[in-house]
């Protein structure tokens, strides 16, 4: 057990990180992510208000649809990344555990006069991930199999109200389940009693998300990185960009839009990296070009259990960001040859219907 975001959380269960990782890729892994922040934004102006905090299209998101979002500071740095669902009567938002107090304060301060900001500290959050997650969950909660990737619906399990989305952070098909905290113990035990399910700790959560090329807040993105530097352009819909019908109007817009339309040159870009030798390249490792000049640093890295090679995420100068570019990681003073690689490192297997 380790302290994490103010909670005691398991790095691994007795079977160990490697077994948990592989189990999630071939069957179903259960993650207790109740440390993450859940909140509701309520009121007719909530979508427009929330949109004013992010470079993301909130207003046009259909009912039952889920989207990835980014809270930015006034310099365009990332305060947090999050997921939100338009539930019709509210916006349901899930933020990172370590960021939740700051996020809620920020949202309250900026848009608290335009909509109700309601934290949900009594709700637990579970993620059931892997190719057999759907088989397991539909056995307990019939109907979840009809959801497709990045959609959500309310369900019931006995007398407990669940809100389930088909999403996750492993690159696999799977679900995230919000439920009353006082019913979580019973629901978790029921899930763990299913033959396909194994509990998964923080260690495998990290190796799975890294293989999926997904950012870990605090490592790969933080208040010093902009969404464009982080390669999250896909998360910023056209309608919010220069020339779009609702362009700008979010914190840091001047800088982020200038980086998006090319009027401000980037100084660094997030890339995937694969080592050519069997040497783990972890976070905060210096990256050089083949002439020995410093060009960046890694932000996450490990030997990917499914990728079966050392993989990393890092930031490099834009001229070294093209896929296939050779770079050198200096691991304990020794050069390890790497190559800029496409992400994800392991193909995604989301269920898109």
């Amino acid at each position, binding site marked *: 057990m380790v302290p994490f975001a103010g909670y005691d959380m398991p*790095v*691994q269960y007795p079977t*160990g*990180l*490697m077994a948990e*990782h592989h189990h999630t890729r071939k069957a179903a892994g259960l993650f207790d992510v109740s440390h993450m922040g859940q909140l509701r934004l309520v009121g007719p102006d909530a979508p427009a208000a929330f949109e004013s905090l992010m470079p993301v299209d909130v207003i046009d998101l259909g009912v039952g649809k889920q989207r990835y979002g980014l809270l930015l500071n006034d310099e365009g740095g990332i305060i947090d990344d999050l997921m939100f669902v338009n539930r019709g009567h509210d916006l349901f938002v899930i933020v990172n555990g370590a960021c939740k107090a700051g996020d809620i304060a920020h949202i309250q301060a900026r848009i608290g006069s335009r909509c109700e900001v309601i934290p949900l500290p009594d709700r637990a959050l579970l993620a059931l991930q892997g190719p057999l997650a759907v088989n397991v969950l539909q056995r307990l909660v019939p109907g979840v199999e009809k959801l497709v990737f990045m959609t959500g619906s309310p369900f019931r399990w006995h007398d407990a109200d669940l809100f389930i989305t088909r999403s996750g952070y492993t690159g696999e098909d799977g679900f995230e389940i919000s439920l009353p905290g006082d019913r979580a113990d019973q629901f978790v035990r029921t899930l763990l009693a299913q033959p396909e399910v194994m509990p998964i700790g923080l*260690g495998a959560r*990290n*190796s799975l998300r890294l293989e999926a090329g997904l950012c870990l807040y605090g490592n790969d993105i933080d208040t010093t990185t902009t969404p464009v530097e982080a390669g999250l352009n896909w998360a910023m819909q056209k309608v919010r960009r220069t020339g779009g019908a609702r362009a700008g109007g979010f914190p840091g817009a001047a800088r982020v839009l200038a980086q998006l339309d090319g009027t401000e040159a980037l100084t660094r870009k997030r890339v995937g990296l694969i080592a050519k030798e*069997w*040497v*783990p390249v*972890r976070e905060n490792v210096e990256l050089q070009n083949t002439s020995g000049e410093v060009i960046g640093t890694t932000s996450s890295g*490990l*030997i990917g*259990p499914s990728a079966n090679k050392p993989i990393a995420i890092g930031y490099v100068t834009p001229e070294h960001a093209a896929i296939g570019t050779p770079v050198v990681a200096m691991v*304990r003073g020794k050069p390890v040859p790497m190559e800029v690689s496409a992400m994800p490192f392991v193909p995604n297997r989301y269920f898109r219907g």
Partner: protein
Amino acid sequence: MTTKYTEDHEWITVDGDIATVGITVHAQDALGDVVFVDLPEVGKTFAQKDVAGVVESVKAAADVYMPISGEITEVNEALRDDPSLANTDPLKAGWFFKVKLSEPAQIDALLDETAYNAFAAQ
């Protein structure tokens, strides 16, 4: 042959003036599945407590310290090829390196098995 232990969770077995060094069962348990070891160069000399190598699992990296001063005479190439030996057989096939002792008296100050087990249980 005597086997001693360090507070860095290494074991050291002395046979004449050559000692064999590895990590303890407790150490490999705490690390989890070992995926990489970085072993010192044969012929290199280290002082006691110098970092001589690295052992890494997917979740963590740990330095391997020299339990005693001396010169590296041999490293375990089989461990380099199959780092999981550090998990499956940490006290035998998973040994890390052999050292020619330069200050054999250092051995006496290391922990015996009872003292190490008490330390590791803390």
